[in-house]
């Protein structure tokens, strides 16, 4: 408890605007975008130079899928990290991570449709309907589409913070389906997908609002305290913080 109080105090101190003009803060969002696109550049380089190995199609599908899921899980870690460390500015990297996660996932799907299946629609539909791991992956992608489409500040304004938040809660089932997709496609060694499941589970548990962790300015909010739901809205997406960058 004392730790929490100390953390709250230090966070409060950090929140006060210093009287002297400070150096421009690091553009965290831009840095995150650039870093999250490095693997894509790497994949493009390997594609152009024949560095994808013996089975380039499989390599492309795997690598884009892996990065899509990894960045999605990274996106979901931003809020818990922010709450645990009190470093509020880290919220700036959430949108870039989420949007690039979608970019990789979409690429993953496009490569599957165009090269792996050679646009054979009947096979693609059969896969989506009959193979559970592809059903799960496709459902996850479908959930990410509206999130990517409403990732702009304008969308938040248009939808209103509450509705935007509610919509963006789709990220949880999308991430769970993504992990399930990974788990179901593995033939024998289930350890890597189980690791993802454990990480995702931990991140979701960290979102359960613990009384000591409620940000001070929110504690008075009647909805946040009264609601006994496992994940009240105040603990989730905080669109106003996006504007605070």
């Amino acid at each position, binding site marked *: 408890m004392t730790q929490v109080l100390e953390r709250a105090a230090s966070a409060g101190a950090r929140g006060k605007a210093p009287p002297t003009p400070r150096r421009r803060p690091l553009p965290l969002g831009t840095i995150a975008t650039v870093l999250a696109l490095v693997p894509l550049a790497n994949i493009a380089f*390997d594609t152009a130079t*024949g*560095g*994808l*190995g*013996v*089975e380039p*199609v*499989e*390599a492309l599908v795997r*690598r884009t899928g892996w990065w899509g899921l990894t960045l999605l899980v990274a996106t979901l870690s931003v809020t818990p990290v922010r709450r645990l460390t009190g470093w509020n500015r880290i919220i700036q990297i959430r949108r870039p991570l989420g949007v690039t996660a979608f970019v990789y996932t979409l690429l993953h799907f496009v490569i599957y449709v165009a*090269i*792996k*299946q*050679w646009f*054979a629609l009947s*096979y693609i539909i*059969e*896969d989506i309907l*009959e*193979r*559970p*791991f592809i059903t799960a992956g496709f459902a996850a992608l479908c959930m990410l589409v509206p999130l990517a489409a409403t990732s702009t500040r304008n969308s938040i304004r248009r939808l209103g913070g509450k509705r935007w938040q509610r919509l963006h809660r789709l990220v949880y089932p999308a991430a769970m389906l993504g992990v399930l997709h990974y788990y*179901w*496609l593995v*033939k*024998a*060694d289930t*350890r890597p997908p189980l690791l993802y499941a454990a990480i995702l589970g931990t991140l979701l548990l960290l979102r359960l609002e613990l009384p000591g962790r409620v940000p001070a300015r929110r504690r008075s909010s009647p909805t946040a305290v009264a609601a006994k739901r496992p994940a009240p809205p105040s603990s989730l997406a905080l669109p106003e913080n996006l504007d605070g960058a």
Partner: protein
Amino acid sequence: MLIKRGSDQIPSSEITPEAAYLNRRQFIEQAGRGAAAFAAGAPLLAGMGSGPGGQQSDELTPYEDIINYNSYYKFGVDKEDPARYARDFQTNPWQVVVDGLCNKGGTYDLADLVAPFTPEERVYRLRCVEAWSMVIPWQGFPLRDLINRLEPTASARYVAFQTLHDPERMMGQRSRILDWPYREGLRMDEAMHPLTIIAVGIYDRPLLGQNGPPIRLVVPWKYGFKSIKSIVKISFVEEEPPTTWNMMAPHEYGFYANVNPEVDHPRWSQARERRVGELRPRPTLMFNGYGDQVASMYSGMDLRRFY
């Protein structure tokens, strides 16, 4: 994740250019076409490039692809793992235990076991259950020759095989992702079929660690996992023997595992395959294109049930 092709195991300068190899093959085939001596082997190459549904060409898969893309869980689950971790795999000395219903059981030194047989070349399609495929020029001898030498008794209805279990040398076995040792088996008529071979080489070179040295099975009309590698035990048995992938996921991998485009794996279609080196999927052929020679063994069997 990725290893560079043309790794340092064999300088690429040493590898026969595929074009030269193909020319040589063609020459041998043409030379042999009229010769009675080659008549026995000719059906083995039938269906390569022609035959029903074989309009697409069946060019040999380059050697470097064959040695760098392997499904060999004893050396790791990624396709690149075996080339990396099997590099220093030693197969000398090597002993093979022969037991069960046969007259010539015992522990054999490999050299003694295979001494009577002269490897011949067999160019076979290899179709993996994961829906990729290759065309591989094997050197080997018919399994039936070996079986005849071991004199199975009349009650032997199946042959069971085991891969070496040695986590020291095969690091993939250090985790129990499969129920080691790796086991496979064939019905006796399948084992005695002239297409079924024990392979000792590829492209006129001894098998590298990742391809299952010193001896491995090749059953070209079955999914690749039936073609067990690095064999240390051969048993003649009366009942259908347990086989590793079937034990692991019985509804996904059957004992027979005949290549069949009409019976899908629960998680993917088997109707098409991607030939390594090609982008566009091609249709998978019934019995991997060897139906003329093997289908009769399964007449009257429901291949949806015995997948």
